């Protein structure tokens, strides 16, 4: 057993730093503001959260060498290894970037309640604890911490009917998925007597001898694992569990959508990779067909629905479903390289999505004909044809990278995932998926067609010009273009992260 040692609390120093600071800020703001609601309070809290995130980033760097890697700390709840450190740092950076790109949006549509920033900070604590949790109970609790914050954030425009609808849908379906997970967890515990990844992995890996005994009922085990798989699949919106995503993306305000799409998806993918790498890896031959089924369904449904949609956010939601299909395909081989390719995929996907959202944040149109001043329909993008040509090109490159066209980053990450999958001799499936991805190019190219080749009646430029957003768009686009030259370094790092995700470096128990 692992024991709780208070000296190990230094490993969660970044989270404690953010938490204590948030508590003090809540006290200070509540005492200062009283019943007063103003957007200046929101913006002050927003900058404070940025400072807390930078502080937490530095603290994470300082705790890297405090403990040997990998080591299991805090009563077995926290693992300190390459993957958790990498994911923590990436979460802080991605959240900072999402915050920075949403600045022009806050100028046009000011939020009044500073509590949303506090809630976002709490969800970031949940994210960093989730990627470093090494126990199914810890996994569940941090997942709930994230989820409750996200239900609230999805409803942050409380005078909008869409926001209320999206939050209620997300809440009901999310709590159902959590219930299914807890049921699977109870079955798993009743069979193995542990909720730790470490002991669970040891029991599963040594289950050759006891597999047909009364204690280790394989069907029972299989069902419990499938039930536990439901929650992370729901959170990354893989196909049979995807019903929430389009409504939530559409109903929540654009910064929250960006947070969902960039940070939360990344975190959930890392959590899923760790879960699959430790507990599912040994019996992967049985889970393979299930994962392939989910993946194919995600790809087919995401592509078809996105082709039929007219609204920008819904198209992005369905493309997110499509991408989670590729993520699941990468998990199927479940060896180091495949898990590493999934980690690489989630990182590059998050960055590319960031460009798309950074561009959409600037798309605020001064027009009476649109009922909101935001761009809603894909055809509204035709208003941008007189915009700065360079940034239109950058946006198009990000979209083509998401579609997976060859010279850009999106092609190489998809190639890695599909190559690892192809080594399992699924040639027919690979052929189907590659031919099918042509459809998925269609709905990305539709965006580009609307910007460059549509007749527009009104000549409207981007009203908001934000140099920081332009800089972020430019940097990530350069990253997307030079990706083939630096891919060897990133793949090597991700291979090491894949080794770390399987927890094979931990001392074995027999």
């Amino acid at each position, binding site marked *: 057993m692992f024991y*709780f040692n208070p000296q190990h609390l230094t490993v969660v120093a970044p989270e404690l730093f953010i938490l204590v600071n948030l*508590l003090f800020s*809540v*006290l200070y703001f*509540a*005492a200062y*503001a*009283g*019943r007063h609601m103003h957007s200046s309070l929101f913006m002050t809290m927003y900058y404070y959260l940025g400072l807390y995130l930078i502080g937490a980033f530095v603290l994470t760097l300082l705790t890297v060498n405090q403990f040997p890697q990998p080591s299991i700390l805090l009563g077995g709840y926290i693992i300190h290894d390459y993957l958790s450190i990498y994911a923590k740092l990436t979460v802080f950076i991605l959240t900072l970037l999402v915050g920075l790109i949403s600045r022009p949006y806050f100028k046009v549509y000011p939020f009044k309640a500073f509590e949303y920033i506090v809630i976002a900070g709490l969800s970031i604590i949940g994210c960093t604890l989730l990627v470093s949790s090494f126990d199914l109970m810890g996994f569940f609790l941090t997942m709930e911490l994230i989820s409750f914050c996200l239900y609230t954030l999805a409803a942050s425009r409380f005078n909008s009917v869409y926001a209320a609808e999206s939050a209620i849908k997300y809440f009901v379906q999310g709590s159902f998925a959590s219930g299914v997970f807890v049921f699977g967890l109870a079955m798993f515990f009743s069979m193995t007597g542990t909720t730790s990844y470490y002991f669970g992995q040891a029991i599963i890996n040594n289950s050759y001898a006891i597999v047909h005994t009364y204690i280790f*009922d394989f*069907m*029972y085990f299989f069902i419990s694992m499938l039930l536990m798989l439901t929650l992370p699949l729901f959170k990354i919106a893989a196909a049979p569990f995807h019903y929430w995503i389009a409504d939530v993306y559409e109903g929540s305000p654009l910064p929250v959508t960006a947070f969902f799409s960039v940070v939360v998806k990344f975190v959930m993918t890392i959590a899923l990779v760790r879960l699959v790498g430790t507990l599912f890896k040994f019996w992967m031959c049985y889970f393979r067909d299930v994962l392939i089924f989910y993946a194919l369904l995600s790809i087919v449904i995401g592509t078809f629905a996105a082709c039929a949609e007219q609204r920008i956010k819904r198209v992005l939601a369905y493309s997110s479903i499509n991408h989670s299909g590729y993520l699941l395909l990468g998990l199927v081989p479940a060896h180091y390289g495949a898990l590493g390719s999934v980690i690489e995929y989630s990182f590059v996907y998050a960055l590319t999505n960031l460009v798309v959202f950074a561009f959409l944040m600037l798309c605020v149109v001064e027009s009476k004909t649109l009922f909101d001043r935001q761009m809603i329909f894909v055809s509204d993008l035709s208003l941008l044809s007189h915009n700065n040509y360079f940034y239109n090109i950058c946006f198009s490159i990000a979209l083509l990278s998401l579609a997976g066209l060859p010279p850009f980053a999106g092609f190489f990450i998809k190639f890695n995932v599909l190559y690892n999958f192809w080594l399992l001799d699924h040639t027919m499936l690979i052929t189907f998926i590659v031919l099918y991805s042509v459809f998925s190019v269609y709905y990305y190219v539709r965006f580009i067609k609307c910007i460059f080749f549509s007749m527009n009646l009104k000549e409207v430029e981007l009203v908001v010009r934000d140099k920081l957003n332009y800089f972020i768009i430019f940097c990530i686009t350069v990253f997307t273009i030079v990706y083939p030259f630096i891919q060897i370094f990133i793949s090597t790092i991700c291979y090491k992260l894949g080794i770390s995700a399987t927890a094979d470096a931990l001392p074995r128990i027999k």
Partner: protein
Amino acid sequence: MFDPELKYFLIFVLVSFCIALLLPIISFLLTRRVTTRQKLSPYECGFEPFGNARIQVTVHFYLIAILFLVFDLEVVFLFPWCFTIHLLQEKAFWSMIYFFIVLIVGFIYEWRRGALEW
């Protein structure tokens, strides 16, 4: 495949399902039904309802109810802790203190934000 004792549970589920299915069917088939127009009205005794059954209640009631729930649960949590504090370790003591701090921060927040004012 499953625990052999589960077959009793299966029998139980099947029997209860059959009973639940049979009771409405029997009452549907055996009773004598007279369908009149009055049967469709909300109150069979002849009143026509006036006004909406739902009235709007101010959201403060819900807020007070939720706050009451939180502090009520806190008392439920506190009672066993008080009675067993001589048996507990240091960790249990400090985790309760931590819980209090978080609760007090929440209380000050809602007090200052005016949730307790009517």
